[in-house]
């Protein structure tokens, strides 16, 4: 308590110098707090926008059907409910594809017409699978962009034939694929979509029971609504056994966003941490000057009975208090900046607010920096011999 008072006093005796010393810490804290808060604010608003698009969906996997398997007709029935959006069962397999140009291994997806809207896909050429294709077990397929380019050599290949494990299919559509698209389930890989009826016929290993399907949020509703509804239906069907199936809301965009954000946060936080360390070195520098300037004072204090520990804690306290004051100023300025930014970009309806977590980290970090960079000067002060210190400079 006494040490704190002394530290505040000695700092306030030279305010300009104190502020200049703290500048590094102030800027470091501002960098840390403002950048991380900005990223978080932006992410929250983008994530909100993304979920607002209704692009959210969930996937359901059935591991044990308890003797009452789900068939596709049942899914159609469920999709008529108002608390569930679209449902699309799917089966996957792999096959060797022979195109006009090349051959290669492809991933096969057997599904329904609903898949297209549910996954938010876009066509580059042609059309998606139709319900008629499914009913007729048609030998038609849709290629993803990579498959079209590799197997056929170009994407304009509608109406041409591709052989999957020797069976000939007509290409009716090619998917549009953005570079590095987040929605693409198989970035880089070749994927071929077939009517599931056709895939079941092609593949020896697949059974007709639905074990995996996607569900989207109902119109004007949330994924959670659909999740509740589907969970209820499945519980009823599978003898109230929670283990028999799993439902996972899997928003690809949101997941991608959050991983981008955490990378950004770590990156920016790291840069800010470096500037904080630089600020800490500034504090150490000034503390060393202070210790030299006050050699005589140290000598007097030691002569009248201050122990090493007392002197050490006095100077350490000064360094820590300097850091914490800088930290407080930095946080206050960050708050002001975020407030201003929010007002300036008010048309975007993004609110940037101080992130509690990062404020806490900043405070802890400043404290540690004060301790670490204050220790050397304080120890230097504590180690002075009273006699040498008393005679310093006269």
């Amino acid at each position, binding site marked *: 308590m006494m040490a704190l008072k002394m530290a505040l006093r000695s700092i306030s005796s030279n305010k300009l110098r104190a502020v200049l010393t703290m500048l590094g810490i102030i800027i470091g804290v501002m960098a840390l707090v403002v950048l991380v808060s900005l990223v978080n604010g932006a992410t929250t608003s983008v994530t909100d926008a993304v979920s607002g698009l209704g692009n959210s969906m969930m996937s359901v996997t059935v591991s044990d059907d308890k003797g009452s398997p789900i068939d596709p007709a049942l899914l159609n029935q469920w999709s008529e409910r108002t608390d569930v959006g679209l449902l699309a069962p799917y089966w996957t397999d792999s096959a060797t594809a022979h195109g006009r140009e090349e051959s290669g291994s492809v991933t096969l997806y057997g599904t329904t017409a609903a898949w297209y809207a549910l996954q938010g896909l876009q066509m580059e050429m042609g059309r998606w699978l139709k319900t008629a294709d499914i009913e007729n077990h048609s030998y038609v397929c849709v290629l993803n962009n990579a498959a079209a380019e590799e197997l056929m050599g170009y994407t304009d290949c509608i109406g041409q034939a591709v052989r999957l494990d020797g069976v000939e299919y007509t290409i009716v559509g090619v998917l549009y694929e953005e570079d590095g698209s987040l929605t693409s389930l198989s970035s880089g890989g070749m994927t071929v979509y077939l009517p599931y009826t056709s895939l079941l016929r092609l593949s020896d290993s697949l059974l007709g029971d639905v074990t995996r399907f996607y569900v989207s949020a109902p119109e004007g509703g949330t994924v959670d609504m659909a999740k509740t509804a589907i969970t209820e239906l499945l519980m009823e069907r599978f003898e109230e056994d929670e283990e028999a199936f799993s439902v996972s809301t899997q928003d690809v965009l949101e997941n991608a966003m959050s991983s981008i954000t955490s990378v950004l946060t770590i990156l920016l936080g790291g840069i800010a941490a470096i500037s904080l360390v630089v600020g800490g070195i500034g504090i150490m520098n000034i503390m060393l000057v202070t210790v030299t300037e006050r050699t005589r004072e140290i000598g007097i204090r030691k*002569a009248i*009975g201050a122990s090493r520990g007392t002197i050490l804690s006095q100077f350490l306290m000064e360094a820590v208090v300097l850091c914490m004051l800088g930290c407080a100023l930095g946080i206050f300025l960050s708050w002001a900046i975020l407030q201003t930014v929010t007002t300036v970009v008010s048309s975007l309806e993004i609110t940037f607010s101080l992130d509690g977590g990062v404020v806490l980290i900043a405070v802890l970090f400043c404290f540690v920096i004060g301790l670490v960079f204050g220790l050397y000067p304080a120890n230097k002060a504590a180690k002075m011999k009273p006699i040498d210190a008393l005679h310093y400079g006269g």
Partner: protein
Amino acid sequence: MIDMNDISKVYLVGDERVRALDRASLHIYPKEFVSIIGPSGSGKSTLMNIIGCLDVADAGAYRLDGLPIEAYSENELAAIRNEKIGFVFQSFNLIPKLTAWENVELPLIYQKVKRPERQQRVAAALERVGLTNRANHLPTELSGGQQQRVAIARAIVTNPKLILADEPTGALDSKTGQEIIDIFHELHAQGNTIVLITHDRDVAKQAERSVHILDGRITEVQL
């Protein structure tokens, strides 16, 4: 109180060895008022530093109040100084940022004396040197004589066994100096042990007993 036997202190200046103290022996008893007199460079300050446990001798034995000083660590010496010795320096050595009150309070803080008792003792010490009305002044706002009186208040506030003064009048005119010496007389009358170092015969002879130091050697003299 002070038992010094064959104390030597040698400084190395370049290649030259300066014997600041050469087998000096000194005995001072409780409640004595002793002055140590000698010309400049004779080793007075060196002696005072060793008596005050600010420095340790290179050779010889020193017991302060029965304690073998050589045996203690730096921190223990700090505690001994704090408890047993009150210093008064030629150049006052007050902490410039602290007020008179706070300067006097400092040794008590290091002794971890509680606040109410501290206040009462600081007030009493300042009263004794007649500076109650200057308590909240900074050293720079005080005259030399007043600063030295603050230093004396700081020295006596812990009720030390020994008051050690190194040329306390050196920086003062003779009238102010005499006022300071008068305070020492009062303290002595109240039963304090006082060791006063000076090169001024007029000051030295006011003590009960005078010790002469020349080239690091001590002899008893009558003034």
